[in-house]
Structures are given as structure tokens and as C-alpha cells.
């Protein structure tokens, strides 16, 4: 704490002569993909808990967007709610309340989709995060990570996710995983490989939503 105060004192003295202020490099941007396909749509209440946690944790100046994963997810139309919180704490709180209302409205009307396009959502999320210019970028994937594409959708190409943390949340086990757990492990390993090859700074899986503090911190 003493060291921090010394740094504060030093920078306080330098502040008069320094005009180089930095708004974005300390900001955090989070893009959350919510899987609404098939039976996973029933997990939407847990997604609500995570969104509330994010709203309570993110600071003024940070950005948050929540998008749904459906048959084809590479579209701005799939973004349910997005906001870059104001620098003033009081305004930021008002934005958070509005964000919460938007997401609550979505939860009430959500319907399941036939296919699951996680890759499309990842590409859309990476684009959104890069546009924010935030220093810390995180994509949360609230899904069972079972990608299912229709015949016309093309996603088998390399993607770019440089400097983005990817956290898979609440990756539930499917019936087939229970029969052969290697399928579950293999699915997660395949995603890890794909994400790391795309240049992501970290890959993480969090299944216990009681441990949400690890969502935004590096492991």
C-alpha cells in the first residue's frame, strides 16, 4: 500500500506536466455468447446470474455485450444488449440498470434454435471486442460447446482471436458424454486447440457458477 501511495505521489507531481491520458488500455470489454439451441435454452436462468455478476463487477468505461448463439450467429442482430459504460459512476449505474432490463426481457421471450453456430458467434465477438479498443478482452461462451451447423453454413476456416481470453461457462455434459466421457474431454480439447490456434491469450472452462470471480481474472 505504501508503494502504491508513493507511486500516487510521484504521478501526482508529474500530472501537471503530463497530458497523456489513456482511456481505453485499462478498460475491459466482455462479449458473452448465450447458447439458445435445443435443450440448452433451459439453462438461460444461469446466464442471467452471470450477466448480473458482470454488471456488478464491470467498472465505468468498460464494455459489455450479450449475444445469442443460434443457427447462424455471425450477425449484429444476434446481439441482445450492448453498452460501453459511462466514465461517471452514476451514469454507468443507470446504464447497467437499463442493460439488465433488456436482458430480462430477452430471457422472458427466448426460444430454442435448431442449430448451434458457436464459431460464428466467436467471430462476431472478436470483431466487437477489437472495435472497443479495450485493454482486456474476454469472450464468455455460455454453452455445452456442441457445435451443430446446417449444411449451407461454412465455418471450417481459421479464425483470428489475438489477445482475447476465451472462457467457456457452464459446459454441461450431454447424454452421450455420460456414456463415453472421452467425448466431453475431446470436445473441450478440440475447442481449446482451435481457440489457441486462433491466437487467444487464454482458454478456460468454468462449470461452477459459484466461482464467477475467475471469469474476469487471469488464471
Amino acid at each position, binding site marked *: 500500500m505504501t508503494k502504491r*501511495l508513493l*507511486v*500516487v*505521489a510521484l*504521478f*501526482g507531481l*508529474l*500530472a*501537471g506536466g*503530463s497530458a*497523456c*491520458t*489513456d*482511456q481505453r*488500455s*485499462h*478498460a475491459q470489454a466482455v462479449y458473452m455468447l448465450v447458447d439458445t439451441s435445443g435443450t440448452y435454452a433451459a439453462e438461460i436462468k444461469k446466464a442471467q*446470474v452471470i450477466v*448480473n*455478476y458482470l*454488471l*456488478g463487477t464491470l*467498472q*465505468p*468505461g*468498460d464494455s459489455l455485450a450479450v449475444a445469442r448463439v443460434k443457427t447462424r450467429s455471425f450477425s449484429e442482430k444476434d446481439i441482445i444488449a450492448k453498452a460501453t459504460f459511462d*466514465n*461517471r*459512476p*452514476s451514469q*454507468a*449505474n443507470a446504464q*447497467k*440498470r437499463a442493460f*439488465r432490463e433488456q436482458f430480462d426481457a430477452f430471457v422472458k421471450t427466448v426460444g430454442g434454435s435448431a442449430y448451434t453456430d458457436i464459431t460464428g458467434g466467436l467471430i462476431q465477438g472478436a470483431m466487437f471486442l477489437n472495435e472497443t479498443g479495450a485493454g482486456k478482452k474476454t469472450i464468455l461462451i455460455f454453452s455445452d460447446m456442441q457445435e451443430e451447423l446446417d449444411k449451407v453454413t461454412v465455418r471450417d476456416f481459421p479464425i483470428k482471436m489475438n489477445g482475447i481470453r476465451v472462457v467457456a461457462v457452464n459446459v454441461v455434459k450431454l447424454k452421450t458424454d455420460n456414456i463415453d466421457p472421452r467425448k466431453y474431454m475431446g470436445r473441450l480439447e478440440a475447442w481449446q486447440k482451435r481457440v489457441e490456434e486462433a491466437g487467444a491469450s487464454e482458454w478456460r472452462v468454468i462449470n461452477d457458477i459459484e466461482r464467477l470471480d475467475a471469469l474476469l481474472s487471469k488464471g
Partner: protein
Amino acid sequence: MTGSQFWMIWPDNAMLSALILFVIAMPFLYAARKLVHDFFRSVGQAVGGPLRLGARWLFASARDMRERNKVVLIAHGREEVGQLIEREFERIGALVTRDLEGYPALQRKLLEEITKVEEDYKKCGEVPPPPPEWVEAVSAIAKVKSDNNEMVQRILEEIKRSVHTIHDKALGEYRRAYESRHKILNGFMPFWRSLDKTFGQVDKKLTGLQDMSSKIDAQMEKYEQINKKTDKAEHALTVSAFTQFAIATLVLLIAAGGAFINFWLIARPMSEMVGGNVYVGPLRVSEVAALVIILVEATMGLFLMEALRITHLFPVIANLQDSMRRRIMWIALVLLVILAGIEAALALMRDMLTADDQALVQSLAAAQQQAPRADSWLRDIPTGAQMVLGFMLPFALAFVAIPLESFMHSARTVGGVALVMLVRVLAFLLRVLGNLVRQLCRVLTTLYDVTIVIPLLIERMVKTARGGGEAVESRPVKRAA
């Protein structure tokens, strides 16, 4: 044979190989003995010499520094004690002007009271008239023998009655006279009281003067000691500086604690003014702004103390004209009050922001039960406390100037003493190191001789044999001589 065994003359027997090599090398080592000894001596001198030289230089520097410190300390002490004496003289001057300028009036009053007491005393001295001379006549008549003579008895009866009447009258007069004297004496009391009070005042004032003069005496003695530059004065000044340094450091630490609380009180609400996510390097601008406000408050406090002539960190302010100094004082005070007001407002805003955050968190945590709401006046206590704290802390910080001045003055002495000590320790270490190197070279020389002990023994035997032969040969020569 592996790379590490190339030197082995006797394969797989390192001990024997080393022994053989040693035996082979021994004549060469013996031959090089003088050279090696010279080499060790040179190394010892080359390394130990500069180290000892460095140690000597450091000791000399420490002496110089100590002298310089002493000069500064003495000069500072002289100035300080001089100021103290000056101040004591000012006080004694003020006391003399205040108390003793009324002394003539006091003396006149005392004289008047004493004269009055004397007059009254004289009045008390007036005794009642002595008994009349006829007392002797009565005594003579009393001796007359009556012998039951009726006439004589009647005369005596008459005389007795007259005497009783006169006695009663005289006794009454006597009592009246004493009563009047008692009244006069009773009238003394207020004068005595007044005299006692006046003398008490005089005594108190004179005792005060005496105390002050003994203080001045003590300071003068100290001043003389300082002027003589005695070790006692130097020691006393150093101890005083260390004490001042410790006290000033403690008070500054307490003030730093206050500043720290002040900082956290206003850092968050500042984000509402300058933005919560704007950074200068690794720090939020709101934190920097809060710090700047606290530093500005401390600076205003410093100027205020300077303008009030409580501290003397800036001679420029102390030397200003009184009107200008007073203007600076008012400006500093007004700015301080404004900043204190801003802090109080920021403290209120902090409370509002915290309440807003809590409301948001409660609304987000749907599963959590809402906490029971406290009474409104209970909720207002922290708000009020924060506001009062925000308003008071800048004024408390203003007084930091006083310990800061003590700290700055005593730090020169303390730093100087610490530096001298450090240089001395360094000099001592260098000296020890130099001696160690020289001794090590001597030990190495001896060790070298130990390794070639066999050739040395042979050399001694040869020399002894030669010496014996020469002695046998020289004996007849000596005898012949």
C-alpha cells in the same frame, strides 16, 4: 581414458597420480620459491594498499564531515537559542511594561496605607488618665483606727461610698477608652488585608520576573556553551535534534494517515468529476486529482502557517510587509475553507454513490434477501460523519507545516550523523579487508613453504653441513689470529 583423467599418471588411482605429480613438481616449486614469495607480497601490497588508503581517506572524510556538521549544528543552535533569548527578553520587557509601569502608583498606595495604619496605631497608644492622687489620701485614712468611734465610722462609710462611686465612674471611663481603641484596631483590618493583597501582587510579579530571569540565565549559559563550541553543547544539540526528528517523524506519520483517509474519502467521488476510467500511466485521473487536492490543501496550510509566522520555511514570506503578509494569510485561509467545503461536498457525493452502488447490487442479486432498512437518522450518521471529516481534515492537514519544519531542520543533523557513521563503517570495513588480504598473502606464503618442506629441509641440512665444515676450518685460523 576420459577427459577428466588425462593427468593421471597411474590410471584409476588419483591419489597416487597426484602424489607422483607433486613429487615431480616439488623441485620446480622450490626453484620458484623466491618468485612466488615476491608475487604474494606484491599481491598483498597491491590489493591491501589501496584498501588501507581508501579506509584512511574515508576516515579523513568522516572527520571533515563531522566538523562541517558541527559548524552547521552550532550555527543552527546559536540561532535557535538566540531567538529563544530574544523572545524571553521580549516577554520580560512586556511584563515589566505591563506590571512595573504601575509600580509608582502601587508604591503611593502602599505609603498611604502605611501612614494611615501608623496614625491609627498612635491613636491606640492614648491610654486613659492615671488614678487620681487622692488614692494615697484614701489609703492614709484607711489606716486610721476607728476604735468603734461612731463618727469615724460614719466618715469612713461616707468615704467608702464616695470611693465606690468614683471607682465605678473611673472603670466605666476605662472601658469606654478600651472600646474606642478596639474599634480603631478593628478598623485596621481592611488596611491590613489591602496591604497583604498588594504585597502578594508585588511578590507574584517579582517571582515571575525572577523565574524569567532564571530561564534567561539558563539560556544564556547554553548560548555561551555554544559560542565556546564545547563538546557538551554539541552533544546536547545533537540529542535535541534527534528528539525533534523522532517527534516530527511520528507526527508526520500521523498526518500521513490523515491524508490517506482523506485521499480515499475523495478519490471515488472525484471520478464523477474527471471520469472513472481515464488513466495517467497506471493511475486513475480521479486518484491523481484527489491527491493534487490534498497536496494543494497542505500547501495552503503551509502558506497560512508561514504568513502567521508560526513556521519559517520561506524567508520570502516572513520578510514581506505586514500588510502583504496579512493578505497572503487571508488568501490562504479562504482557499483552505473553499477546499474544505469541496471536500465536504465530495464526501456527501461519495455516500450517494455508495448508496447507488448498493442499490444496484441488491437489484442485481435477485436471490439475495433485501437487508432491513435502518432508521433514516441512523443512515444519516455516516453521511454526516463523512462530511464533517471531509471539512475538518484539510484544516488538520494545515498544521503539518509545524512538524515539517522541525523535520527539515533536524533531518540535516540526523542525516549528517548517519552519513558520518556510514562512512566510518565503510572505512572500518575497508581497513579490515585490507588487513585480511595482507594476512592472507602471508598465510599463502607460509602454505607454499609447507608444500615444499622436503627441499627446504634438505637445504637446511646442506647449509648446516656447510656451516659446520666452515666452522671446523675457520677455528685454527681464529686461534692463529
